[in-house]
């Protein structure tokens, strides 16, 4: 039996979809070892309204800490609240987004708990939870036990499908702010610049179109029409990000975002190990590259050896023509 606490993630007063993957993981743990799960929602003004979005997922309770001190996310202020809420729970789960990756290890340290980051699965071995984690750029999976009374778990969003509402109405309970430590006095939020986009988020998109260094400063000029045509999120190789052709948070790979969409289209990407680690779980992979020896072709379901500056516009026209016909 485990009592599980899911830590929700908010953005601009709404629950991020990433949270639903953590709920899915909580449900799986519940199936494996029994018990129940609750959800913690914390943030500034509007947190309580956001908590209302999560009452139909089968949680025993929604704990909500709405406080002006939590207006802007800072681990130094959030970790004490999560750790205080976690006192009555055995397993603390959140999605391994940049938020979860930043916050969870601090929570674990505060609880004197072991931490398993970026888990792709959880199984039960002899009644004990064992967490499956990708390591070595996804070239091996490790299964680990966490040998502490409390366990803290980060969930890889691409490996846990978003939980669907299951009905019911979980009660919302207020949770008081927990006082932060000295750390909070030496950090100040300055700004959060988020690119406003109509596109789906990279980690959540059904289709991802990624570009490599070969695109040079025509990155957006070439990639955007194709992404528009497919309703896709845009990703990039590390080389394209490092060269400044695409912003850093577009990076797909071991050290960037890990995605597993229905369709992944790699444009001018050679397929370094680190990039492949971030997209090889995609259902269908398409690669367009003029180098027939590029390693990306070894994992692509459909490879087209062609000059991308000709092939991509041609592909956009073909897709648009198809749309008109249907």
């Amino acid at each position, binding site marked *: 039996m485990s009592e599980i606490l899911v830590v929700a993630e908010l953005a601009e007063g709404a629950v991020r979809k990433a949270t639903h993957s953590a709920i899915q993981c909580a449900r799986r743990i519940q199936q494996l070892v029994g018990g129940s799960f609750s959800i913690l929602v914390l943030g500034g003004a509007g947190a309580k309204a956001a908590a209302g979005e999560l009452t139909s997922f089968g949680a025993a309770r929604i704990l909500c800490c709405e406080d002006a001190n939590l207006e802007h*996310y800072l681990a130094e202020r959030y970790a004490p609240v999560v750790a205080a809420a976690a006192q009555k729970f055995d397993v603390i789960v959140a999605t391994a987004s940049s*938020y979860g990756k930043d916050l969870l290890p601090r929570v674990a340290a505060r609880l004197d708990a072991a931490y398993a980051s970026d888990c792709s699965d959880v199984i039960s071995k002899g009644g004990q939870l064992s967490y499956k984690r990708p390591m070595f750029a996804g070239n091996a999976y490790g*299964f*680990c036990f966490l040998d502490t009374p409390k366990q803290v778990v980060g969930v890889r969003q691409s490996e846990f499908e978003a939980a669907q509402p299951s009905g019911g109405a979980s009660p919302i309970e207020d949770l008081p702010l927990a006082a932060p430590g000295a*750390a909070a006095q030496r950090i100040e939020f300055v700004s959060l610049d988020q690119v406003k986009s109509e596109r789906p988020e990279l980690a959540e998109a059904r289709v991802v179109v990624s570009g490599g260094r070969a695109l040079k400063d025509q990155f957006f000029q070439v990639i955007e029409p194709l992404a528009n045509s497919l309703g896709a999120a845009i990703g990039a190789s590390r080389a394209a990000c490092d060269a400044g052709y695409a912003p850093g*948070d577009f990076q797909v790979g071991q050290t960037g975002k890990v995605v597993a969409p229905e369709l992944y289209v790699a444009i001018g990407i050679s397929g370094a*190990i680190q990039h492949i680690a971030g997209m090889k779980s995609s259902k269908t992979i398409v690669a367009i590259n003029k180098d027939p020896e590029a390693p990306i072709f070894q994992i692509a379901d459909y490879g087209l050896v062609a000059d991308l500056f000709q092939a991509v516009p041609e592909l956009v026209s*073909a897709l648009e023509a198809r749309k008109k016909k249907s």
Partner: protein
Amino acid sequence: MKILVPIKRVADPDNANKVRIGSGGQKIDTGNLEWKLNPFDEYALEAALRLNEDGKAPKTRLGEVVVVTLGPKEVETNLRSALATGADRALRIETSDEQLDGHLVALALKKVVEEEKPDLILMGKQAVDGDSNQVGQILAELLDYPMATFAATIKADARGLEVSREVDGGVAVVRLGLPALITVDLRIVAPTSVYSAQTDRSFKYNEGVRFAPLPAIMAAKRKKLDVKALGDLVSDGKLRTRYTEFAPPPERKAGKKVSSVADLVSKLANEAKVI
């Protein structure tokens, strides 16, 4: 300012596909791989050196950079190369790689921080072997220090450090008072990513990390390298995270080449049924 840079050696990440799972799936066999410094730790060292320079020629050194690692005697090779790159002093905590997990490393580093009293701890956001991304955050909490993870830029001024962080969907900027901890992301070694308070903001570094010139490699052999036993720093060496099994990733079937854009569109529509 005094900066502590914890570093780790990892199995060559460019050959990570040569990682083999040992007999019975109980351990990872890295025997045929070369050891290298974790790339993010190289970036952290570069950022530490930039934060302690004034960007003038010749550069004036503004503070001490101390590198620390945990591991057997062989890891001194990596410490020496960090010393050749520009670190002033090194510390090795004697242990075997199998006796460690992230929490234990953080506990040991906490002791080092208490003894060394650095103004800043600068480290890689993750080691590319375990890919855990945890030691920095755990260490910051154990010390009750403020932190900025996934740092893309660090600008020092009289009031402290302004750090921009790469987060989902954009960039978050925080201001840190010292002492503090920063974990660095890839873009930290871009030409205009890191400035000390004394470096002119128009100064541009070379892209990437610096390389040690031959005289520095020779000089590094005479720099101070202390050794401590893990047991002297942490009394309870019990591991909390216990790996019992390893498995290879599922194989992807080799794909096929399509002859034209029309062929591709037709296969995506009729075979894969994704458009």
